[in-house]
């Protein structure tokens, strides 16, 4: 066993390095990822190690990055694209949803498209417009794509490698607010598959479900609730598409209550989808409606208002109280 204390950003860096050592067809592309190491330094040192042919500083054009990655995949490469910020993915949206997502289908399976698109996402960094968004639902809605998001350094290290090793396009959402806190990473072994959800705190009365930047908030809320005498189970979704429902349904059958939390706006969102499916699959176990705690249905506000916009432990606990009131 080899356990190190690493930040999520460093864990991703080591995961990318390992993937590049394991398979020479893995190449990185993006804006400022070479000499600079990316604006979040996730690719720091990799161009120096692997050279400019495997770590490409691209022109500033997201559609160009994704579109050329598609062509590289046709040639047998496994491109890992970095989109600099969540809100800058939209110039590449057409190539992702109309091309990348559909090309395996259009080829009737004769050509795989193992392209990973890394997207730093979410709030809590006090940044300007377009730099704090959570656009995951657009991609989860698109057949042909897979969407995952780690919440811990350990998961980041392993999930990026698994995403790269898979044969389908993956949107890999990286929680910016969790880039720097450190956590234990076991680089020798991993016990869970990429598209699995996981119970990260056991409890009996209310299930709290979230992903990426929200998992830490849910754990904090569960701790406060425990102090107030309420036992919450916390689940880290990890994979937004496909969704691993077995641990979620099992938990709801035990607790009878589900609160889903996300930074993204709630309307037509990942939380909406899970609420509908859990209602179908665990209807007779539910003691209360499935509740959602989400960003408001507004543009992401100017940064001084972000703590109001983004769900925190108190808003989660308010939903816990409501769930218990039925």
């Amino acid at each position, binding site marked *: 066993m080899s356990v190190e204390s690493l930040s999520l950003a460093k864990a991703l860096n080591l995961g990318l390095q390992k993937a590049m050592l394991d398979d020479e067809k893995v190449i990185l592309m993006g804006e400022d990822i070479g000499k600079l190491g990316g604006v979040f330094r996730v690719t720091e040192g990799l161009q120096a190690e692997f050279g400019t042919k495997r770590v490409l500083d691209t*022109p500033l054009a997201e559609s160009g990055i994704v579109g*050329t990655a598609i*062509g*590289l995949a046709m040639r047998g490469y496994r491109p890992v694209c970095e989109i600099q910020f969540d809100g800058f993915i939209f110039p590449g949206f*057409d190539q992702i949803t109309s091309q990348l997502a559909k090309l395996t289908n259009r080829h009737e399976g004769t050509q795989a498209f193992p392209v990973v698109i890394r997207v730093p996402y979410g709030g809590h960094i006090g940044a300007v417009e377009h730099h704090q968004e959570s656009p995951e639902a657009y991609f989860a809605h698109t057949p042909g794509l897979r969407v995952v998001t780690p919440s811990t350094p350990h998961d980041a290290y392993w999930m990026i490698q698994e995403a790269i090793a898979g044969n*389908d396009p993956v949107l890999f959402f990286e929680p910016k607010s969790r880039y720097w806190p450190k956590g234990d990473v076991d680089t020798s072994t991993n016990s869970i598959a990429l598209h699995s959800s996981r119970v990260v705190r056991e409890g009996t009365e209310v299930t709290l479900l979230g992903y990426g930047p929200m998992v830490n908030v849910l754990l904090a809320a569960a701790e406060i609730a425990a102090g107030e005498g309420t036992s919450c189970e916390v689940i880290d979704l990890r994979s937004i598409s496909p969704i691993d429902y077995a641990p979620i349904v099992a938990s709801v059958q035990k607790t009878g209550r589900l609160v889903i939390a996300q930074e993204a706006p709630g309307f037509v969102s990942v939380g909406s989808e899970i609420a509908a499916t859990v209602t179908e699959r665990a209807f007779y176990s539910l003691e209360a409606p499935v509740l959602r705690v989400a960003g408001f249905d507004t543009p992401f506000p100017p940064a001084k208002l972000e703590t109001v916009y983004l769900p925190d432990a108190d808003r989660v606990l308010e939903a816990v109280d409501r769930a218990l009131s039925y």
Partner: protein
Amino acid sequence: MSYTAATVQLLSEKGTLVEGDAADEYFPYIEALSDEQLREFHRQMVVIRRFDIEAANLQRQGQLALWIPSLGQEAAQVGSGFAARPQDHIFPAYREHVVARIRGIDPVKIIEMLRGISHGGWDPKTNNNFHLYTLVIGSQTLHATGYAMGVQLDGATATGDAEKDIAVIVYFGDGASSQGDVSEALVFAASYQTPQVFFLQNNHWAISIPVETQSRTPLYLRPGGFGIPGVQIDGNDVLASYAVTRANLDAARSGAGPRFIEALTFRMGAHTTSDDPTKYQESALLQSWVPKDPITRFETWLRSRGEGDEFFAEIATEAEDLAADVRRRTLAIVDPPVTKMFEHVYTDPHPLMGEQQAWLAAYEAAFEGGQA
């Protein structure tokens, strides 16, 4: 837009060879062609025009949802299609039926797309590197550039061996020239000095919008701003299309960087069978292109070289035979099984595909006569 002083033309509208500074450097490519190759140019142009008419008829008879004619653009496509070497990769738009045929694609595979059987479905790897049609305008230019970047990373180009070095050619149109993806492809191609040729067929119309709305300057000038050499050719001259594309692909494969060709041609039919050009196009303009027809002038030239009636009768028969064969096989196409919907959405297993396919099977089995 009409021909300019810079337009490369080797074969005039009258079917005579054109001497001059713009043309002279390209004649060696024509002189290197055998009589059989020249006959093949003509054969492909004639046969595909007949195929086009048959496919349009099939649409009118309710057998296809849509047809995308290439009428009038045969020379631009046949010349450039033959200019590509066997190892080259070709990224079409969606109108390059004859390039597909030259690379060995069964025309019925194209028919299947328009009949609602597939979204493409041929494998470029086993079909002489002819990639799938792309219907979102201009998207394929980036795929071509990415592919060319991969060729470069592999060291599979610019070794000095023209028989092995790979180049990429991508087709697009005057409408596509306005798309952001095309500009981004030009940027990436220039930045990485990819081994590729951008082949723009300026057929003067993006459905109902004339090329003047896309560009106020000749389109062959546009790549200059990206640092990519551009050349304009008479796209209805199959010799110019062949020679200029051959020269530019060979330049690209030699390591000289990307190239851009604007082939001036004219869409002699509709954009698709859903279109009605009489609503937006002056008939005089269309008529002005009739004397520039690519097939007529090439036949005139071949006859002047001694080709006789027998040859032209033979390919007319071949064209009729192909049309009849395509009709017969189109009517025999069976609908795809419903399972096709769920196959190949993903390469690796995905739970929703199995769940939804099983649900659909159970749903259908629940009806009277279904198999429970």
